[in-house]
């Protein structure tokens, strides 16, 4: 139903006396066109925000991290194609900013053995993913409860290494880019469980974070976090 007040009505009511005010004007023509866009219709898309934390063990003691301070922020745009009330498939474009905080231990190897007061490796990654969705429960035009399984790929478009040290009483920040050890791409699998806007997500990185020529042990591959869809509840 198209509700269009005043403007259309003023045009339609041609020549009406001055001061006559159209308060309600509704046009129902075309209302019966089938709807294909909606949360549980053929097509739907929405953006989301997410945050994930690294989990699981590193490959080697030399790649230990601070778990609470190693995390990833995600912003993405998700498209969903409905196959049935239960099954959907979809794809999404996303931008990740993932920060790894290596522990400063005597075993440390990543990105190098040099110890700092604090240190982080930041990956900025535009990515693309593909997923299958299973929905639970009979529902109308509503996201409802779901489980997603999929795969993702991302381009490590920008990687920087930042270290902080206290030198002669002064805090010194060193920022490096253009390193030769980060891999160009990342890929892995992902899974999500959600209820409407609220999603718990997990991903597992299959690819190596560092080039094989660098001979560096891998940071933990598992990430667990949550997302918030920006669509209506």
């Amino acid at each position, binding site marked *: 139903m198209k509700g269009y007040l005043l403007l259309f009505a003023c045009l339609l009511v041609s*020549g*009406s006396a001055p001061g006559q005010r159209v308060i309600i004007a*509704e*046009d129902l*023509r075309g209302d019966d066109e089938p709807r294909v866009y909606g949360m549980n219709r053929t097509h739907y898309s929405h953006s989301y925000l997410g945050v994930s934390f690294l989990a699981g063990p590193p490959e080697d003691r030399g790649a230990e991290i601070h778990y609470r301070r190693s995390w990833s922020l995600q912003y993405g745009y998700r498209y969903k194609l409905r196959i049935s*009330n239960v*099954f959907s498939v979809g794809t999404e474009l996303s931008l990740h900013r993932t920060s790894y905080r290596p522990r400063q231990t005597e075993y440390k190897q990543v990105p190098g053995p040099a110890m700092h007061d604090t240190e982080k490796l930041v990956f900025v990654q535009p990515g693309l993913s593909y997923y299958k969705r299973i929905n639970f429960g009979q529902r109308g*035009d509503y996201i409802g409860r779901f489980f997603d399984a999929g795969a993702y790929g991302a381009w490590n478009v920008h990687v920087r290494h930042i270290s902080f040290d206290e030198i002669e009483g002064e805090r010194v920040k060193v920022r490096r880019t253009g390193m030769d050890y980060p891999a160009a791409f990342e890929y892995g*699998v992902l899974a999500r469980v959600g209820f409407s806007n609220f999603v718990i997500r997990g991903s597992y990185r299959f690819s190596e974070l560092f080039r094989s020529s660098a001979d560096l042990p891998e940071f933990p591959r598992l990430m667990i976090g949550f997302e918030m869809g920006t669509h209506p509840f």
Partner: protein
Amino acid sequence: MFRHALFLLLILLLSAFQAWTRFSHQGPDPGMADGFWVFFTDKQGVEFDPHAYFHENAIGRRLSLGLCLYDSLDFPVRADYLDSLTSLAGAPSVVSRWLNAAHVRLSAGEAIQLETLDFVKKVIPVSMRLIPAAAKAEPVSQAGFEVPDSALLSQQIRHMSGQAFAAHGFDGRSIRIAIFDSGFSGVEEHPAFAHIIGQGRIIGSWDFHRSQENVFTSGSHGTMVLSVIGGMLDGLPMGLATGAEFLLARTEIFRELLVEEKYWLAAVEWADRHGAHIINSSLGYVFHRYFPEQMDGQTSLVARAAHIAASKGILIINAAGNEGNNEKWRIVVTPADADSVLTVGALSFPSLLRAPYSSTGPTADGRLKPNVSALGTVVAAGRRGLATPRGTSFASPLVAGFAACLWQMNPSWTNMDVFRAIERSSTLYPYYDYAHGVGIPQADYFLSPYPLVVLPTFDIMDGGNDTLKIVIRQNPAKDQNQTDKATIHKYIDYLYYKIMGPDSGIEQYFVVEVSDANILKLGMEQFGPGRRLLVHYKGYTSAVSF
């Protein structure tokens, strides 16, 4: 290398899964819901004594409609079937005689197994969680016991000329109204209900969520609804049915939380059994469960149950829903979509035009909804003190009170007689649109001392240059022993018009404020062959066909 291979394998598995989902699930979805209705094949051999089961009101209703007291719909579900179901799937949370079904929690596999049993007709997955339309009611402003808006309190009675009922001694006495809502906390203590409590007119109550009689512990949406039907403040009525009896059913948990449709189904059978004449339901189910194109009055279980209740003589009055601003939905919710339900839209105060949140019609199959309208902003009794809530939830009980008085006035009428009379009395009747239905019910229509006449209030004439002109008549003449319908509509000074398509559906509708006799000039180019223009002003409707 192993990780790369594993990744490729997972991608292949995902692709295979897609192919499977694409080709193996084109039909109905497999039962993955956590709740299922299990429908049974028959009721053979059950015993049923209507006089033991029903309240005398329920028997009276059936007899007045000429219905058989031994309707198999009312027979109990077979105990052996329920025992078998309980042993296989656990105790059902709701058993429906009318549907001959039980609601249980099952896994999808168990549901498929159950369907193979001889006594099971079908198993239907249902979502356990739904959001009532009342959840989107406009904000409630709380006040003390001082009336927050005395003009509003007066208007919530007078806009239906409800004072005429009181003046003639009609207050809904002997009419039993069931209210389905989210909780009635404060009812036992609030002074607005002292007359109801004091006279023992809360006949029964049941909390369907907690399976207990006490409905006064949580939630006050029902408290507000009850007050708008039959509350009184210092001798001033808040609703019209201050003398009615009440059945209070708590069928939703909180206004803002997810609830279950099954309780509505259970409550409607409970209300029938306990002799309700009228059910006021300020609830409705929307997109969490259904699509707008399913609002055809046939699809939802609650709409089907409403039809059964209506066929047994109960007048069901339901809020239209508060989805008017929701571009994804806009239309009435279910069970307000059922044609045997009197659906009430909400009006703004003081304009008496559709409140923006009020759901509109038509239904998915093109029927008129809402049927009538009433104020959606009211003075109501909150848990403590008074409030001025907004929503179709509060328009519906105003009409429920009206219906109780009308039924008391005409005790031999059936539910559908009351339904049609309410429509007939309304301000716009026989005109209607999808925002207001046929307008606001009017008690004066039934209680006017003189015969009611409809005098022309405007003329449709040729405006020249392919236009039509509508001109308001000044002071139409009438006999002194007649009541002009226009005088009933003293609060409404709008001109309504609509353009009907060749298929008799409304294509466009308008409301225009009247401040000049030369109210409208319409270009003829918009009226193609087969179209009709219908115009309404102060009780008088005129049409032009093209």
